[in-house]
């Protein structure tokens, strides 16, 4: 952080008009997001029960967290989920975006097709997938049976359940990833490619030396938002498996929900969310440091 800041300041000056541009947004953000987060952090040092009890308990919640096997398992599950989810989604998303960036009409249909799952609500999408995964009447097992392959009890098998949750998430969010990459690709000036073509650079070279570097801000954006969404995964889990079987799919936010809203340990749940917050902050900071995204791309 500080390194970037220093570089900025030494290069360019301070223009207060910047505050004017961010002020309208920041006003809402301050009241609706920052203050509630601050409240949440304060709550993590209390035994708040969502009603009358709200006493300071020091670090008791954090000490308890370290001894909570289910929470530790939830952290593991969340990281595992993130790993399985982020890389394929971004890779396939980029690939699709490259294919879809062509302007002919046929590709528009594909573009819409891949984007469609994203606009269905998660509640409804999960319901449909529950049918597909159903062990007896489900489409998946019926198809497997038809071609003579072994069937599984997808969402109730401890070895498969997490894979299914990840698959549904990828299915749901691939369109989003594709869309962001698409708008990123469209932001790359065409003359760069024209110039490269004149220089005789191959398509592969163009991809590695123009597309990839030019998409860096987009990739950074997608990586951060994918981290956030996979660290915060809740709805899929809640609807598809409810954390089971044997806690193999419970995630941090699922635990936060269970502790805070069904067991009334909001103080404890807040401590979990502080842990989550620290985790994502670390990832973001690492990205800021190594992502080299703070500089303006100058081409000319």
């Amino acid at each position, binding site marked *: 952080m500080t390194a970037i800041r220093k570089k900025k300041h030494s290069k360019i000056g301070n223009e207060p008009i*910047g505050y004017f541009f*961010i002020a309208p947004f920041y006003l809402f953000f301050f*009241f609706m997001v920052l203050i509630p987060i601050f409240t949440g952090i304060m709550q993590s040092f209390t035994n708040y029960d969502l009603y009358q009890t709200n006493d300071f308990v020091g670090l008791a919640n954090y000490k308890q967290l370290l001894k909570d096997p289910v929470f530790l398992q939830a952290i593991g599950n969340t990281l595992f989920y993130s790993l399985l989810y982020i890389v394929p989604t971004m890779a396939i998303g980029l690939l699709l975006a490259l294919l879809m960036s062509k302007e002919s009409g046929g590709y528009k249909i594909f573009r819409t097709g891949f984007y469609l799952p994203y606009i269905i609500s998660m509640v409804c999408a999960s319901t449909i997938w529950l049918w597909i995964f159903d062990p007896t009447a489900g489409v998946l097992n019926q198809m497997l049976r038809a071609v003579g392959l072994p069937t599984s009890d997808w969402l109730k098998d401890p070895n498969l359940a997490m894979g299914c949750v990840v698959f549904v998430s990828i299915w749901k969010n691939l369109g989003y990833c594709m869309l962001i990459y698409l708008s990123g690709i469209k932001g790359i*000036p065409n003359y760069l490619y024209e110039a490269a073509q004149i220089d005789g650079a191959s398509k592969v070279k163009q991809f590695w030396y123009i597309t990839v570097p030019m998409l860096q*801000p987009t990739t950074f954006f997608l990586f951060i938002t994918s981290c956030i969404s996979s660290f915060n995964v809740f709805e899929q889990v809640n609807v598809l498996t409810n954390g089971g079987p044997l806690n193999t799919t419970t995630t941090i936010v699922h635990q936060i929900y269970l502790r805070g809203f069904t067991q009334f340990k909001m103080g404890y749940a807040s401590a979990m*969310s502080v842990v989550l917050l620290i985790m994502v902050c670390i990832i973001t900071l690492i990205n800021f440091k190594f992502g080299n995204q703070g500089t303006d*791309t*100058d081409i000319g």
Partner: protein
Amino acid sequence: MRSKRKLKNVLVIILLTILCIIFLIPLFLMILTSLKSMPEIMASKFVLFPEKALFSNYIEAMQRGNWLGYFGNSFFVTALTVLISLILNSMAGYGFARIPFRGRNTLFFFALTGMMVPTQVTMIPVFINLKSFPLVGGNDLFGNGGTGMINTYAGLILPYIAGAFGVFLCRQFYMNFPASLDDAAKIDGCSRLTAYFRIYLPLSKPILATLAVLKASQTWNDYMWPLIMINNDEKMTIQVAVISKFVTEVNTQWNLLMAATAMIILPLLILFLFTQKYFVEGIVTTGMKG
């Protein structure tokens, strides 16, 4: 050479078609289910196609409750959210990306942090804030006495437009622009304001279209927040309506549920098709010279 490329194109298209069909199986299932009768769905043997397509399910679904009202509410909330977000987010994104000012990175880092906290944690503080908002909904200057923004559209919309997602998106987009653009603007004597409105905004169509589509889907599909914020049928939004009308403690009417869901997707689909043309509009075609 040429025929080889053509062959490659055909292969790509075939591959995409197969992928796309697999991708859309769940949606086909949704449509097929929406046309079945309940006994057909409940039957122990699963059948893919309904014996007789019951389009009447769609009419029946829309007669459960005041769907014109639910659509109206959701439309109003979504449209307002998207409109305000586009303005606030592109301004803030531009500010963060192009204008140097003291504390910029810190402020931006805070904005990023704000995206990371799960709503389950901030939901209750936000709700309390909105309930005790001064001078609204019967509240006095100190936020006591009334219900504040509970059960109002404002209470629904405020947390939506406070999300930092769009700011982040716009910032990353504006960071792609060449620094020479700012220099040129400076030489021409443009202030930051004029530069934003005259140069950057007109070039922002792809990103604004993207943001509009994403923000609209999020708002339109949100379930939990309207569920706790809205208390009566008059202000109910579609996602809450679709669950509360067709999923009950006794049973779930899958056919009507799926019919309603299909109807709910339509406006978002239309929005996407409409904004598609802006995605293909690259920077060059909007008249920027290198």
